[in-house]
Protein backbone atom coordinates (compact mmCIF):
# COMPACT_ATOMS: atom_id res chain seq x y z
CA UNK A 1 0.00 0.00 0.00
CA UNK A 2 2.74 2.57 0.74
CA UNK A 3 4.15 2.07 -2.74
CA UNK A 4 0.71 2.69 -4.20
CA UNK A 5 0.41 5.89 -2.17
CA UNK A 6 3.77 7.03 -3.50
CA UNK A 7 2.52 6.20 -6.95
CA UNK A 8 -0.58 8.35 -6.47
CA UNK A 9 1.53 11.16 -5.06
CA UNK A 10 3.67 11.05 -8.17
CA UNK A 11 0.60 11.22 -10.37
CA UNK A 12 -0.75 14.22 -8.44
CA UNK A 13 2.55 16.00 -8.67
CA UNK A 14 2.87 15.15 -12.36
CA UNK A 15 -0.63 16.49 -12.95
CA UNK A 16 0.07 19.88 -11.43
CA UNK A 17 3.53 20.20 -12.97
CA UNK A 18 2.29 19.46 -16.46
CA UNK A 19 2.24 22.50 -18.72
CA UNK A 20 0.15 20.85 -21.40
CA UNK A 21 -3.42 19.76 -20.94
CA UNK A 22 -2.73 16.13 -21.69
CA UNK A 23 -5.68 13.73 -21.83
CA UNK A 24 -5.92 13.32 -18.10
CA UNK A 25 -9.18 11.82 -16.95
CA UNK A 26 -9.63 14.03 -13.96
CA UNK A 27 -13.24 13.70 -12.92
CA UNK A 28 -15.44 16.55 -11.80
CA UNK A 29 -15.67 15.05 -8.33
CA UNK A 30 -11.98 15.80 -7.87
CA UNK A 31 -12.66 19.47 -8.53
CA UNK A 32 -15.49 19.52 -6.04
CA UNK A 33 -13.26 17.71 -3.54
CA UNK A 34 -10.68 20.46 -3.87
CA UNK A 35 -13.20 23.27 -3.48
CA UNK A 36 -15.35 21.71 -0.75
CA UNK A 37 -12.40 21.02 1.53
CA UNK A 38 -10.47 24.18 0.77
CA UNK A 39 -10.93 25.62 4.24
CA UNK A 40 -10.01 22.46 6.16
CA UNK A 41 -7.00 21.70 3.95
CA UNK A 42 -5.54 25.17 4.27
CA UNK A 43 -6.32 25.24 7.98
CA UNK A 44 -4.48 21.97 8.59
CA UNK A 45 -1.52 22.99 6.46
CA UNK A 46 -1.17 26.41 8.10
CA UNK A 47 -1.95 25.36 11.68
CA UNK A 48 1.03 25.94 13.98
CA UNK A 49 3.28 26.69 11.03
CA UNK A 50 5.99 28.89 12.54
CA UNK A 51 7.02 30.15 9.11
CA UNK A 52 3.77 32.11 8.96
CA UNK A 53 4.22 33.77 12.36
CA UNK A 54 5.04 37.23 10.97
CA UNK A 55 2.91 37.21 7.84
CA UNK A 56 -0.27 38.65 9.38
CA UNK A 57 -1.95 35.25 9.21
CA UNK A 58 -4.54 36.30 11.81
CA UNK A 59 -6.25 38.74 9.46
CA UNK A 60 -9.46 37.60 7.80
CA UNK A 61 -8.68 39.32 4.51
CA UNK A 62 -5.23 40.21 3.25
CA UNK A 63 -3.74 41.77 0.16
CA UNK A 64 -2.18 39.61 -2.48
CA UNK A 65 1.36 40.47 -3.46
CA UNK A 66 0.53 39.94 -7.09
CA UNK A 67 0.31 43.04 -9.21
CA UNK A 68 -1.49 45.30 -8.79
CA UNK A 69 -1.32 44.65 -5.05
CA UNK A 70 -4.46 46.22 -3.71
CA UNK A 71 -6.78 44.94 -6.42
CA UNK A 72 -6.67 41.37 -5.31
CA UNK A 73 -7.68 40.73 -1.68
CA UNK A 74 -7.73 37.12 -0.52
CA UNK A 75 -9.78 35.72 2.33
CA UNK A 76 -8.36 33.62 5.15
CA UNK A 77 -8.14 29.85 4.75
CA UNK A 78 -8.28 29.83 1.01
CA UNK A 79 -5.66 28.48 -1.38
CA UNK A 80 -4.56 31.95 -2.57
CA UNK A 81 -4.29 32.99 1.10
CA UNK A 82 -1.94 30.12 1.90
CA UNK A 83 0.08 30.83 -1.20
CA UNK A 84 0.33 34.50 -0.23
CA UNK A 85 1.44 33.71 3.33
CA UNK A 86 4.17 31.38 2.08
CA UNK A 87 5.25 34.07 -0.37
CA UNK A 88 5.43 36.59 2.48
CA UNK A 89 7.41 34.17 4.60
CA UNK A 90 9.95 33.72 1.80
CA UNK A 91 10.12 37.48 1.33
CA UNK A 92 10.73 38.08 5.03
CA UNK A 93 13.45 35.40 5.17
CA UNK A 94 15.10 36.94 2.14
CA UNK A 95 15.01 40.53 3.37
CA UNK A 96 15.93 39.76 6.98
CA UNK A 97 19.28 38.35 5.85
CA UNK A 98 19.91 40.74 2.96
CA UNK A 99 22.25 43.71 3.06
CA UNK A 100 19.34 46.06 2.46
CA UNK A 101 18.22 45.54 6.07
CA UNK A 102 21.74 45.64 7.45
CA UNK A 103 21.60 47.45 10.79
CA UNK A 104 25.16 47.05 12.01
CA UNK A 105 27.13 50.10 10.99
CA UNK A 106 30.57 50.66 12.47
CA UNK A 107 31.41 53.64 10.28
CA UNK A 108 28.85 56.20 11.42
CA UNK A 109 29.02 55.61 15.14
CA UNK A 110 25.57 54.08 15.27
CA UNK A 111 24.67 53.05 18.79
CA UNK A 112 24.74 49.36 19.60
CA UNK A 113 23.98 47.17 22.58
CA UNK A 114 26.58 45.63 24.81
CA UNK A 115 25.56 42.03 24.15
CA UNK A 116 27.36 39.13 22.47
CA UNK A 117 27.33 39.21 18.69
CA UNK A 118 25.24 36.04 18.35
CA UNK A 119 22.56 37.37 20.69
CA UNK A 120 22.58 40.70 18.89
CA UNK A 121 21.93 38.92 15.58
CA UNK A 122 19.01 37.04 17.14
CA UNK A 123 17.53 40.25 18.48
CA UNK A 124 17.99 42.01 15.16
CA UNK A 125 16.38 39.12 13.33
CA UNK A 126 13.37 39.21 15.63
CA UNK A 127 13.16 42.99 15.38
CA UNK A 128 13.12 42.86 11.58
CA UNK A 129 10.45 40.17 11.49
CA UNK A 130 8.23 42.14 13.88
CA UNK A 131 8.75 45.22 11.74
CA UNK A 132 7.79 43.35 8.57
CA UNK A 133 4.67 42.09 10.31
CA UNK A 134 3.74 45.69 11.08
CA UNK A 135 4.37 46.65 7.45
CA UNK A 136 2.12 43.86 6.25
CA UNK A 137 -0.53 44.85 8.77
CA UNK A 138 -0.24 48.45 7.56
CA UNK A 139 -0.85 47.31 4.00
CA UNK A 140 -3.60 44.83 4.88
CA UNK A 141 -5.59 47.25 6.99
CA UNK A 142 -6.58 49.13 3.85
CA UNK A 143 -7.80 46.08 1.99
CA UNK A 144 -10.90 46.71 -0.06
CA UNK A 145 -10.33 50.46 -0.35
CA UNK A 146 -9.57 51.86 -3.78
CA UNK A 147 -8.91 55.58 -3.42
CA UNK A 148 -5.60 56.86 -2.14
CA UNK A 149 -7.31 59.26 0.27
CA UNK A 150 -9.38 56.49 1.83
CA UNK A 151 -6.40 54.17 2.05
CA UNK A 152 -4.27 56.79 3.75
CA UNK A 153 -7.08 57.63 6.18
CA UNK A 154 -7.43 53.95 7.17
CA UNK A 155 -3.68 53.56 7.51
CA UNK A 156 -3.51 56.71 9.58
CA UNK A 157 -6.09 55.23 11.93
CA UNK A 158 -4.04 52.05 12.11
CA UNK A 159 -0.89 54.00 12.96
CA UNK A 160 -2.75 56.00 15.61
CA UNK A 161 -3.66 52.77 17.36
CA UNK A 162 -0.09 51.44 17.47
CA UNK A 163 1.92 51.62 20.66
CA UNK A 164 4.95 53.87 20.81
CA UNK A 165 7.21 50.85 20.61
CA UNK A 166 5.47 49.48 17.53
CA UNK A 167 5.47 52.86 15.85
CA UNK A 168 9.20 53.23 16.51
CA UNK A 169 9.84 49.73 15.13
CA UNK A 170 7.96 50.55 11.95
CA UNK A 171 9.66 53.91 11.49
CA UNK A 172 13.13 52.49 12.04
CA UNK A 173 12.63 49.65 9.58
CA UNK A 174 11.43 51.99 6.84
CA UNK A 175 14.45 54.21 7.46
CA UNK A 176 16.85 51.24 7.55
CA UNK A 177 15.59 49.83 4.24
CA UNK A 178 15.61 53.28 2.64
CA UNK A 179 19.19 53.81 3.75
CA UNK A 180 20.11 50.29 2.63
CA UNK A 181 18.60 50.99 -0.77
CA UNK A 182 20.61 54.19 -1.02
CA UNK A 183 23.88 52.50 -0.04
CA UNK A 184 23.44 49.54 -2.39
CA UNK A 185 22.32 51.66 -5.35
CA UNK A 186 25.19 54.09 -4.89
CA UNK A 187 27.74 51.28 -4.60
CA UNK A 188 26.37 49.60 -7.72
CA UNK A 189 26.31 52.80 -9.78
CA UNK A 190 29.79 53.77 -8.64
CA UNK A 191 31.16 50.45 -9.80
CA UNK A 192 29.45 50.59 -13.19
CA UNK A 193 29.74 54.21 -14.32
CA UNK A 194 32.55 56.62 -14.92
CA UNK A 195 32.28 60.17 -13.65
CA UNK A 196 31.05 61.70 -16.93
CA UNK A 197 28.45 59.10 -17.70
CA UNK A 198 24.83 60.08 -18.05
CA UNK A 199 22.16 57.97 -16.44
CA UNK A 200 18.94 57.64 -18.36
CA UNK A 201 15.80 57.31 -16.36
CA UNK A 202 12.91 56.18 -18.56
CA UNK A 203 9.55 57.34 -17.28
CA UNK A 204 6.38 55.33 -17.62
CA UNK A 205 3.46 57.13 -19.22
CA UNK A 206 1.36 56.48 -16.16
CA UNK A 207 3.95 58.08 -13.91
CA UNK A 208 2.64 60.84 -11.72
CA UNK A 209 5.99 61.68 -10.17
CA UNK A 210 8.31 64.19 -11.75
CA UNK A 211 11.64 62.78 -12.78
CA UNK A 212 14.31 64.09 -15.19
CA UNK A 213 14.84 61.99 -18.29
CA UNK A 214 18.57 61.84 -17.74
CA UNK A 215 20.95 62.63 -14.94
CA UNK A 216 24.65 63.48 -15.34
CA UNK A 217 26.70 61.15 -13.24
CA UNK A 218 28.54 62.97 -10.55
CA UNK A 219 28.53 62.37 -6.86
CA UNK A 220 26.38 65.28 -5.76
CA UNK A 221 23.68 65.09 -8.39
CA UNK A 222 23.66 61.35 -8.37
CA UNK A 223 23.26 61.32 -4.62
CA UNK A 224 20.24 63.57 -4.98
CA UNK A 225 18.77 61.33 -7.63
CA UNK A 226 19.27 58.21 -5.53
CA UNK A 227 17.91 60.02 -2.50
CA UNK A 228 14.79 60.92 -4.47
CA UNK A 229 14.41 57.26 -5.41
CA UNK A 230 14.99 56.38 -1.78
CA UNK A 231 12.11 58.62 -0.70
CA UNK A 232 9.81 56.98 -3.25
CA UNK A 233 11.14 53.63 -2.09
CA UNK A 234 10.25 54.39 1.50
CA UNK A 235 6.87 55.76 0.46
CA UNK A 236 6.00 52.63 -1.47
CA UNK A 237 7.60 50.14 0.87
CA UNK A 238 4.98 47.43 0.59
CA UNK A 239 5.25 47.23 -3.19
CA UNK A 240 9.02 47.44 -3.05
CA UNK A 241 9.25 44.53 -0.64
CA UNK A 242 7.56 42.33 -3.18
CA UNK A 243 9.50 43.78 -6.09
CA UNK A 244 12.83 43.43 -4.36
CA UNK A 245 12.20 39.81 -3.55
CA UNK A 246 11.10 39.14 -7.14
CA UNK A 247 14.31 40.67 -8.47
CA UNK A 248 16.36 38.29 -6.36
CA UNK A 249 19.86 39.50 -5.73
CA UNK A 250 20.73 43.13 -6.03
CA UNK A 251 22.52 42.82 -9.37
CA UNK A 252 20.24 45.34 -11.05
CA UNK A 253 18.59 48.15 -9.13
CA UNK A 254 14.88 48.56 -9.72
CA UNK A 255 14.50 50.85 -12.72
CA UNK A 256 13.00 54.19 -11.96
CA UNK A 257 10.19 53.55 -14.43
CA UNK A 258 9.14 50.43 -12.52
CA UNK A 259 9.34 52.30 -9.25
CA UNK A 260 7.23 55.18 -10.48
CA UNK A 261 4.69 53.25 -12.49
Amino acid at each position, binding site marked *: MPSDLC*YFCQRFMAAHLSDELHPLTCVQSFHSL*LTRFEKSITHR*VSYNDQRLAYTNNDAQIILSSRLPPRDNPVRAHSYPWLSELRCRSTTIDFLATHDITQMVDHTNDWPTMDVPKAELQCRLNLFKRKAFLLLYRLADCAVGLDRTGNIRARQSLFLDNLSTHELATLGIMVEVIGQGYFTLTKALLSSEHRNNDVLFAPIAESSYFYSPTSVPYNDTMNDNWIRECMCVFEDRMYFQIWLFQELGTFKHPPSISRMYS
Partner: protein
Amino acid sequence: MHGSWDLFRSDGGIELVPELSLLIIQQVVDECPNAIRSLLLLSKVHGRSPFR
Protein backbone atom coordinates in the same frame (compact mmCIF):
# COMPACT_ATOMS: atom_id res chain seq x y z
CA MET B 1 -9.38 7.13 -24.99
CA HIS B 2 -5.82 6.34 -25.94
CA GLY B 3 -3.26 7.84 -23.56
CA SER B 4 -5.79 8.89 -20.95
CA TRP B 5 -5.28 8.02 -17.29
CA ASP B 6 -7.37 8.25 -14.19
CA LEU B 7 -5.94 10.25 -11.31
CA PHE B 8 -7.83 8.08 -8.83
CA ARG B 9 -7.00 4.66 -10.21
CA SER B 10 -3.58 3.00 -10.42
CA ASP B 11 -2.60 0.93 -13.43
CA GLY B 12 -3.11 -2.12 -11.20
CA GLY B 13 -6.73 -1.07 -10.63
CA ILE B 14 -6.49 0.23 -7.05
CA GLU B 15 -9.04 2.98 -6.39
CA LEU B 16 -7.99 5.90 -4.24
CA VAL B 17 -10.65 6.77 -1.67
CA PRO B 18 -11.49 10.48 -1.11
CA GLU B 19 -10.01 10.46 2.41
CA LEU B 20 -6.64 9.45 1.04
CA SER B 21 -7.01 11.88 -1.82
CA LEU B 22 -7.45 14.67 0.71
CA LEU B 23 -4.35 13.61 2.61
CA ILE B 24 -2.33 13.58 -0.58
CA ILE B 25 -3.76 16.93 -1.66
CA GLN B 26 -2.81 18.30 1.76
CA GLN B 27 0.72 16.99 1.31
CA VAL B 28 0.99 18.48 -2.16
CA VAL B 29 -0.36 21.84 -1.00
CA ASP B 30 2.05 21.83 1.94
CA GLU B 31 4.98 21.18 -0.40
CA CYS B 32 3.92 23.72 -2.99
CA PRO B 33 0.87 25.94 -2.35
CA ASN B 34 0.82 27.10 -5.97
CA ALA B 35 0.23 23.51 -7.12
CA ILE B 36 -3.42 23.77 -6.20
CA ARG B 37 -3.99 26.32 -8.95
CA SER B 38 -2.93 23.81 -11.60
CA LEU B 39 -4.93 21.00 -10.00
CA LEU B 40 -8.05 23.18 -9.88
CA LEU B 41 -7.61 24.24 -13.47
CA LEU B 42 -6.94 20.75 -14.75
CA SER B 43 -9.83 19.18 -12.86
CA LYS B 44 -12.19 21.93 -14.02
CA VAL B 45 -11.15 21.67 -17.66
CA HIS B 46 -11.14 17.89 -17.83
CA GLY B 47 -14.23 17.48 -15.71
CA ARG B 48 -16.11 19.27 -18.47
CA SER B 49 -14.16 17.78 -21.33
CA PRO B 50 -16.33 16.73 -24.29
CA PHE B 51 -13.90 13.87 -24.92
CA ARG B 52 -14.96 12.05 -21.79
